[in-house]
């Protein structure tokens, strides 16, 4: 009898552990089905950015946007490129556009607000930057 109890306990523990490890996987948002061409252009743009070819990185993202004009990740990346180009006003605008298209994706929105915060800091708008960073923290 005791053996059976121990057995049951073991099974229970295993089940719980299994559930616990499975649960977060199930609730994590599925990545949107990505267009291969868009993904390739996104990667190309990243490598161009890394090589300091910011103009070309922007051009590659524009190519991707022609295929998926409503993809908020592309608009966000364009904001990042403009930030690196020290075009802060443009960076803020692109991040705002990404925000409108982001829907309920809180992670993406938070990152947009961080970019807006950085852009505003560089523009000397410290209050606006503060407000943006707070939005990024979900406040």
């Amino acid at each position, binding site marked *: 009898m005791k053996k059976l109890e121990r057995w049951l306990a073991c099974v229970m523990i295993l089940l719980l552990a299994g559930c616990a490890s499975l649960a977060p996987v199930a609730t994590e948002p599925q990545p949107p089905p990505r*267009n*291969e*061409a868009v*993904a*390739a*252009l996104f990667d190309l743009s990243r490598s161009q950015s890394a090589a300091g070819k910011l*103009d*070309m990185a*922007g*051009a*590659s993202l*524009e*190519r991707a*946007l*022609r*295929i998926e*004009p*409503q993809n908020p990740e592309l608009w966000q990346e*364009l904001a990042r490129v403009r930030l690196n180009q020290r075009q802060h*006003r*443009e960076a803020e*605008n*692109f991040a*705002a*556009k990404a925000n*409108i*298209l982001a*829907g309920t994706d809180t992670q993406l929105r938070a990152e947009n607000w961080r970019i807006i915060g950085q852009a505003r800091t560089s523009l000397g708008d410290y209050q606006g930057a503060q407000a943006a960073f707070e939005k990024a923290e979900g406040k």
Partner: protein
Amino acid sequence: MAKRKRKKLNKKLVFLFLILAGVLAALVFTLHLDSVVRERFEGKRWKLPARVYARPLELYPGLKLTPSQMVSELSLLGYRETPEAQEPGTFRLREQVLELVSRPFVFGDGPQASIALRVGFVNGQVQELVDRSKKSALGLVRLEPILIGGIYPGKNEDRVLVKLDEVPQHLVDALIAVEDRRFYSHHGIDPKGIARAFFATASGTVQGGSTLTQQLAKNFFLTPERTLRRKLTEMLMALLIEFHYSKDEILEAYINEVYLGQDGNRAIHGFGLASSHFFDKPLTYLDLADTALLTGMLKGPSFYNPRRQPQRSLERRNLVLSIMEREGFISAEQFISGRNAPLGVIDRPPRGTSPHPAFLSLVHRQLQRDYRDEDLRSEGLQVFTTLDPQVQLAAENALTNRLSQLEQRYRQPGGSLQAAILITSTQNAEVQAVVGDRDPRSKGFNRALDAQRPIGSLVKPVVYLTALQQPHKYTLATRVADTPLVHQQAGTEDWMPENYDLQYRGEVLLRDGLIHSYNVPTARLGLEVGVSEVLANLRRLGVDRRVPEYASSLLGVNEFSPLEVTQVYQTLAGGGFRTPLRAIREVLTADGVSLQRYPLNIDQVVDPAPLFLLTRTMQDVVREGTARRLGNYLSAELQVAGKTGTSDGFRDSWFAGFSGDRLGVVWIGRDDNEPSGLTGASGAMTIWGQVMASLDLAPLVLPEGEGIEHVWIDQASGLRSAADCQGAIILPFIAGSAPEQAVPCAQDAEKKSLKTWFERMFGR
């Protein structure tokens, strides 16, 4: 004796002097010729027009594209259908599989090699892309862009100058084979050639003795005089040309200079213009048979004119092909397929060398902001534009077809109606198509850019946006009076706007004013928020100039060009982000070095929330309002947003609208400003519908912005209602602005009144 000697000496001196004088004269003459040659040569050589390209087609799995759309794109690129697609610029279509070999091309981001490609289609989509030589799948392939025209020196397009690298190799081969076999080895004149020509002429066959260089020299003269002196001068010039310039430079000059026919009082000089004149294609897209035809004409441009003497010029073409085969320039198979090719000459010469002059003039104008006109016309710049040939052709076809139909239906004299269309991409403001005349090839007045016309009700969305930006005062459910209105202002006549149907409805909901385009409620609303406020908003949205302010500005009395209207609606379609309309992506030098990119930039000028309310209502304009007949053209699922516009006395018919991916603005009217009898809905909207129906539109799905709530509203009172009551609709509101007061459900109200009646009847 001495005397004689002196005389002899004198004679000798005179003789020497004469020789010296002769040599000197020859030297002076040679120097003179030298300067003439150099002047003529340099003057011609350095003026290369800017070359203008359409957008390149990007292929990727999942792209909506049918095999026939792909074939039409390829034929615009000058690709030929062949049994086996082996050479660059050829393709082969077998039902749902298209094989092609692209041409190498230098883009702004670097050179792109030729690729042997297989494209598989399924259900109107590209399913797979395969590199045929590597047998590997590809994710993205960019075809080379279509050449759509040039920006030429001088006002008259009397030359279409080409660079040697855009000249088909077949043309060079044909010229060498037929006109000057030893071109690459002689020094300007070819004694062997002359001798051969002499004997050939004597024996009765046809052979010209002039080298290409001599022929070029001959073209520098104005008259075709035939004397020995002229011949000798020509030879001297040829030697001088060879002394100064390389073979490639000479060949390029020859190709651009040589006389190939007459078009009225205009001489056709150069193969570039001849290609446009006879084939309506850029020279670079001509195939073997086409180039052989043009080469054959050199011998006698009017004698072998393919329009007047088709049979004779066909035989001459085939003779050229056979010489090319004999000389080893082409294979026997190429000879046979070339010989069997049709003449390929278009019936009438095209008007102008660009098929899309209205778009080209927009490009030219945008370029003039950054470049000197002189450089545009001479530096050989390469201009990469945003023109989408599929969209442009759809716009041209719809406009041409519908205008004649409308003239018949509304009893307008044939040819009296004019129109303009602009189509852009909503998210990046790239201009995909421009038509500025009912004849799309006409280079005259470009109405899309330059016609200034009252915009009528197209201004109304701006009036309503201005109101909706004050959510504490105005919502979509606000009641607005629809009763006679007299606006008095010192110094001006009283203004009494009327509704289109001359009726008054007492009171309407704000949204209905826009949906049904009621003038009186719109005017009242506009006067409340202020004419200046409305016009300030119009400027914010995209009009870059001040316009006179009248109360009637609220109903669109101000004049704008279709281009200006497009800029305003672009901001609405782009989610409140203002993006300057762009017709150019990038400019490269003649050698492919990037000079300038025109990157995408956006500027948020309107808050998303009020714009969301406005756009929803513009979707209702199409669903239930003045544009509901658009349903004859487009599926309701596309949920397009739009607005009709009609000016006083039916002089202007407008429609502006957008889907998820495309914005279009259409104007119809008469150049003499007489009434056309058309409303926005009966005229411009039908063209808009026809164009958009032929394109594969993406539905307009509005992202639900932050701070928007949806509330059931009783349509009669504009007050809150329970869900699904009769006469109730669900409307978006900026959070906190929805009416608090509620009315009972109409049905409930009936029940309630019935109940009270029973109560009264029977008591408790």
